[in-house]
């Protein structure tokens, strides 16, 4: 490639600003979307990669089998840390304990801090180095702790915080004034180990017995354990040894009563597993578990799907450019013929067109990078991830590689056309346009463009409708007047919290307050039990602990019998049990009424009597099958639900007033009940938005492809149109002639796209128990959108054809 080739390319672009804008911008938009999506995929796949030797770091997972259906969680008994260090192949073991929710008070302001209490070796394993202060000293003193850079800014408004103090609180009675001994960098955004503060085991905030437990694990407490394992070491052997240690630990042995042993039915009480730290982000089991660390988790299938979308969008944009460039080459045949007569070699000719294509690709890459950089914050917000780390020189270099590759690939077909130009034909005036096979290839590519747009549009609409349907699906009660919050920050459930509830209930604007272990719409604190009838029938259910006014505040009426009633029941009474219809059916009752008065046992606990059958409430998302539920009268829960007697805003204000009186050092987080359901579908809503943007871009690109096709069709048929007009054909007939060409493309695209879209939609909907009836209407609407887009895109060329002056056309 010579400089002159780029010069010629630049002049060509300068002489046709319209063409240049469309060519460069079209490719730039495709590149920008591709770069953002690929950047996000790389970000996802690089989770935890910052940890030194990350590929050899494993986290310990456990599953507690005494709870029916219990999931794997990213914790393991702390005692395994010491066991692991004695095992061949384990080079080091450490971990952290998110035992305490931490609140920091600075200058009278309360802040929630995401903290971890670190075990020996943690900072070394993660390669954490202090920006200022002494990390080792700060983590070993009883009166100091460590904060991250952003925590320092949040608490103090500055990064220079060494020696500054804060009142730390982990539970109602546990507070200590501690000094900041070191400041460390924030963990990367793509890390599943999140913290804003690091606490050492010697910090006086930590009860001594817990500090001892953190080192020995004799009491069987869990923690987040990390093991560095030598490459080539036997994971099976290490896992088996850890499992043995748990099986034989006295603390777990004595917890296995004959009752529990029966329930376990041969399974171990705790299963142990090792899992690569690098895989934690995509771990579906941990994502589903409400007891795992609440960090960002991703779905590998979704990320792979987004990569596919990125490639498709870039391919669509590239095809557009190839179409444009090819038409241009056809118009430049005379120039190519001249170059051939002057003796240009085939290699030299190809290089010329590669240079011109590279010029467009490089300009598009620069514009695409700029677009991506400008839209990165918005994209990060859409994906609910901090993607600011994507703006690096290394990623810009990768973008350049992609741009150069696109430049090379898009040059292939136009260069091939150029090589096929026959100078003898062209120079004597014979039209030597692209071969029929080449034309068909371009038409096929346009069909694929339109097909891709139809698939994206259908799929996006289906997701959108299903998400809307799920968010608005009735949870079994009216959530509009309910507020939910938790007694967090280590608030102890007891007399003080009872007085708080009483005081709250008496506030104007509040109709009632109920206590439960879970808010409806979440299933964080349920536990699985087996209810057994005297006749031997049993059913596995999720047990919910609620206060006696639970059903009243949620506005529920019994399906059979009665529900808990403050006039009849006492809180924490062990006898009455309310079940739902699913439990009734599972226990063998053909009607809910038959269950009333029946006695059930829960293991060796006192029998309970079924007093009523409640309507089915949705404690999970529409992706989960409704489960059998049982409700017992216990007020040990930390979830409070407030019913507003008037406006939600007034109720919220009342809650805040009473809260500040009882818990001035704790942070209140109120959530409207309806938002709890929406949170289950937040990822779906984000996916729908992302795909929506992608669809708009795909439609625009497809529209442009149709425009170019229409322009080419009119150009090829100019003489035919002129002759038809000469013989008296009407304008409408000419319009139909052009429309026929375009219509065939859309029809073919629909034949390809609709089955693919239908399969994709069916796959997406499959996990949902209830599906919107509108999902497959998206196919018809997407097809309609494609038709309208094509019609608009071809309109100008159709008008040009209809307005063609025969005399002018025939003369030229």
């Amino acid at each position, binding site marked *: 490639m010579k400089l002159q080739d780029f010069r010629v390319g630049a002049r060509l672009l300068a*002489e046709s600003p319209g063409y240049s804008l469309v060519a460069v911008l079209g490719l730039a938009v495709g590149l920008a979307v591709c770069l953002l999506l690929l950047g996000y995929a790389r970000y996802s796949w690089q989770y935890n990669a910052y940890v030194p030797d990350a590929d050899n770091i494993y986290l310990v997972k456990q599953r507690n089998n005494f709870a029916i259906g219990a999931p794997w969680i990213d914790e393991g008994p702390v005692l395994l840390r010491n066991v692991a260090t004695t095992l061949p192949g384990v080079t080091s073991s450490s971990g952290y304990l998110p035992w305490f929710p931490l609140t920091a008070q600075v200058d009278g302001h309360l802040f929630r801090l995401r903290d971890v209490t670190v075990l020996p070796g943690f900072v070394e394993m993660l390669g954490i180095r202090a920006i200022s202060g002494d990390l080792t000293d700060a983590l070993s003193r009883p009166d100091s702790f460590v904060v991250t850079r952003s925590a320092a800014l949040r608490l103090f408004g500055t990064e220079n915080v060494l020696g500054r103090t804060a009142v730390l609180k982990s539970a109602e009675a546990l507070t200590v004034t501690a000094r900041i001994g070191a400041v460390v960098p924030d963990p990367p955004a793509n890390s599943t180990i999140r913290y804003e503060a690091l606490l050492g085991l010697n910090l006086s905030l930590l009860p001594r017995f817990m500090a001892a437990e953190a080192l020995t694990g004799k009491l069987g407490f869990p923690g987040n354990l990390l093991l560095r394992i030598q490459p080539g070491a036997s994971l099976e052997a290490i896992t088996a040894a850890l499992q043995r240690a748990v099986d034989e630990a006295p603390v777990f042995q004595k917890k296995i009563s004959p009752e529990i042993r029966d329930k376990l039915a041969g399974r171990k009480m705790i299963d142990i597993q090792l899992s690569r730290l690098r895989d934690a982000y995509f771990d579906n089991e941990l994502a589903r578990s409400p007891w795992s660390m609440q960090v960002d988790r991703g779905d590998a299938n979704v990320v792979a799907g987004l990569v596919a979308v990125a490639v498709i969008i870039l391919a669509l944009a590239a095809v557009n450019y190839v179409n444009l460039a090819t038409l241009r080459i056809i118009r430049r045949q005379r120039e190519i013929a001249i170059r051939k007569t002057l003796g240009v070699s085939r290699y030299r000719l190809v290089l010329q067109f590669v240079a011109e294509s590279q010029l467009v690709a490089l300009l598009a890459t620069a514009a695409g990078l700029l677009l991506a950089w400008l839209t990165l914050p918005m994209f990060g917000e859409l994906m609910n991830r901090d993607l600011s780390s994507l703006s690096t020189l290394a990623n810009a270099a990768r973008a350049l590689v992609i741009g150069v590759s696109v430049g090379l690939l898009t040059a292939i077909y136009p260069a091939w056309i150029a090589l096929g130009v026959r100078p*003898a034909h062209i120079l004597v005036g014979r039209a030597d346009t692209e071969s029929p096979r080449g034309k068909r290839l371009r038409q096929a590519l346009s069909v694929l463009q339109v097909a891709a747009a139809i698939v994206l549009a259908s799929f996006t609409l289906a997701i959108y409708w299903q998400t809307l349907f799920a968010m608005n699906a009735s949870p079994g009660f009216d959530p509009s007047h309910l507020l939910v919050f938790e007694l967090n920050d280590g608030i102890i459930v007891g007399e003080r919290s009872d007085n708080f509830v009483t005081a709250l209930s008496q506030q104007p604007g509040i109709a009632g307050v109920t206590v439960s272990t879970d808010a409806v719409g979440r299933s964080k604190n349920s536990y699985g039990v087996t209810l057994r009838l005297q006749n031997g029938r049993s059913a596995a259910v999720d047990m919910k602990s609620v206060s006696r006014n639970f059903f009243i505040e949620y506005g529920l009426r019994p399906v059979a019998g009665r529900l808990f009633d403050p006039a009849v029941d006492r809180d924490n009474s062990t006898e009455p049990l309310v079940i739902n219809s699913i439990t009734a059916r599972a226990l063998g009752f053909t009607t809910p009424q038959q269950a009333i008065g029946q006695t059930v046992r829960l293991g060796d606990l006192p029998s309970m009597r079924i007093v009523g059958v409640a309507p089915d409430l949705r404690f999970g998302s529409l992706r989960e099958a409704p489960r059998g539920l049982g409700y017992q009268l216990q007020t040990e829960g930390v979830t409070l639900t407030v019913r507003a007697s008037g406006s939600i805003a007034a109720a919220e204000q009342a809650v805040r007033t009473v809260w500040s009186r009882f818990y001035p050092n704790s942070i209140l987080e109120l959530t409207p009940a309806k938002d709890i359901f929406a949170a289950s579908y937040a990822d779906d809503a984000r996916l729908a938005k992302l795909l929506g943007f992608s669809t708009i871009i795909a439609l625009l690109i497809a529209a442009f492809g149709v425009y170019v096709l229409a322009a080419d069709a009119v150009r090829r048929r100019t003489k035919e149109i002129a002759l038809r007009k000469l013989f008296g054909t009407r304008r409408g007939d000419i319009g139909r002639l052009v429309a026929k060409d375009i219509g065939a493309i859309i029809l073919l695209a629909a034949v390809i796209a609709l089955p693919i879209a239908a399969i994709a939609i069916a796959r997406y909907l499959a996990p949902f128990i209830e599906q919107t009836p509108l999902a497959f209407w998206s196919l018809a609407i997407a097809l309609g959108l494609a038709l309208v887009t094509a019609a608009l895109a071809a309109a100008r060329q159709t008008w040009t054809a209809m307005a063609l002056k025969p005399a002018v056309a025939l003369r030229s």
Partner: protein
Amino acid sequence: MLELKRTTKRFVGAEVVTTALNDVSLQIGAGEYVAVVGPSGCGKSTLLSILGLLDSPDEGEYWFDGRNVAGRSEGELSELRRGRIGFIFQSFNLIEELSVTENVELALEYAGIPTAERRERVTHMLDKLGVAHRGKHRPSQLSGGQQQRVAIARALVNRPGVLLADEPTGNLDSAHGNEVMSILEKINAEGTTIVMVTHSPSHAARASRVIGLVDGALADQGRAAAVS
């Protein structure tokens, strides 16, 4: 120097086969100035294409510089053509995106001439043809006569042995046309073989020999005179 032996060229369409040249045998000696005349569609341009190695005959032989080049591939023809044959066209066929200097330089670049020598030869040629002052201009900024002189410069800058001209005065007024004809005579006087297709009898008469083509075959001299 150029010899066609019983060459035939056909163009195959979807349903029609056109014989553009039919069993043509022709010799053109080095330094000759030959005019080719004939009615439209008689095969003149096809003849020029074959002589200029832009196309290959379907039958017969074409001896160029002592070598039979019939049946060679496009790449081989391009290789043979480079630096040996110059072309001038009725519609000038300059590349609009290049300046006058760049248009002329293109032929030298493809011939692999080093940059410094290229500049010197281009400057000399443009001077010789009286268009040096337009070196930085684009073709569309030149008059028809100037464009044709640039085309001639491009055709000659490689010092080819053969110059093929396809109606070089077709798009020019008579004054500029005569100017071009004078230039061609000078070139021929310097030893370049010229084969020129023309519809102009007066221009044909300035050649040393006139060949007539009728329906793809050579006409005799009398008919050639009548045709021209």
